[in-house]
């Protein structure tokens, strides 16, 4: 067994048990290799001391000192929550607006739009509906207009002026 492999196994054996083959190989190697035995001893001592060390206690009244800081920071947290939900509210309100606009378009009847003359003819309607009441009033100027229109359709239509 190479020394590097042995060193790895020495360290692993300190954390958890090795499988039987590895254990046997390591033990055999350690019997033969004084350098690895020395390493094992050093590692055991170093890591042993490290694991056994006693730590000082934190300063007294840890929770008492911590509690007011939590209170202060909680307002920051609520602001963060507002920010989080506020950001989500923007696309949501946009969506609602779009939906509202869609519903308005679909369900509220639109005002009748003015049709072009060609469209009125296609629908077999009289294009002069609006002008008929004027013509029927019998006023002279309106009569003239009437004549103008009839002359357009007549073969020998002439424009005449009636003062």
């Amino acid at each position: 067994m190479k020394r590097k492999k042995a060193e790895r196994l020495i360290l692993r054996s300190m954390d958890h048990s090795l499988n039987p083959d590895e254990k046997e190989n390591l033990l055999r190697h350690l019997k033969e290799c004084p350098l690895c035995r020395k390493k094992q001893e050093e590692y055991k001592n170093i890591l042993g001391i490290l694991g056994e060390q006693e730590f000082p206690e934190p300063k007294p009244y840890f929770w008492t000192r911590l509690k007011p800081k939590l209170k202060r920071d909680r307002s920051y947290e609520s602001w963060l929550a507002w920010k989080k939900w506020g950001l989500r509210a923007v696309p949501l309100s946009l969506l609602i607006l779009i939906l509202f606009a869609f519903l308005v378009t679909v369900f509220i009847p639109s005002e009748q739009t003015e049709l072009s003359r060609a469209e009125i003819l296609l629908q077999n309607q009289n294009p002069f509906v609006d002008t008929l009441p004027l013509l029927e009033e019998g006023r002279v100027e309106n009569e003239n207009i009437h004549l103008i229109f009839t002359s357009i359709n007549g073969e020998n239509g002439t424009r005449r002026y009636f003062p």
Partner: protein
Amino acid sequence: MEEKELVQSAQKEDKDSFGILVERYRNKMFYLAYSMTNNRETADDLAQEVFIKAYRALPRFNLKSKFSTWLYRIAINTIKDFHRKESGIEKVSLNQRTDVPDAKNFKGEEEKQEKLKLIRENINKLPEKHRIILTLRDIQGKSYSEIADILKIAPGTVDSRLFRARKRLRKLMAPYLSLFRRES
């Protein structure tokens, strides 16, 4: 009360439940910070900061991992941030010892403390990722799987990183190794 229930209560702004959690973990957080900074005042401040951050982030904790794992993750990040800010100051205070202490001058507990001081000084010379993994495994006694969860790395990476960290520590301690062979 189960830890999960305490966490759920604390999430609903129950400070007493959070207080119980603080009492359970304050020493562990303090030890972690202390072993990474070697300063009691700093460790205390860092431990407080860890709990403040945890309390703020608690509503977002989804209980998928263990509370302790989540708390350790916060602690590691807090300590990393601290080291990033204080790196200049730290380097000055760590590389002070150049002499090899004479083991004959120390006996019993005093000898042990002197050895411990040597180990700590040399751990602090290690790169941060090696320092963290050594602290979690060899000081805090965390299992490989817990370390893997805390650091978000594969268990195989824990094994290899730990091996390199310990090997490097031994190398750094080469001038003092005679002290550590005497005991067996």
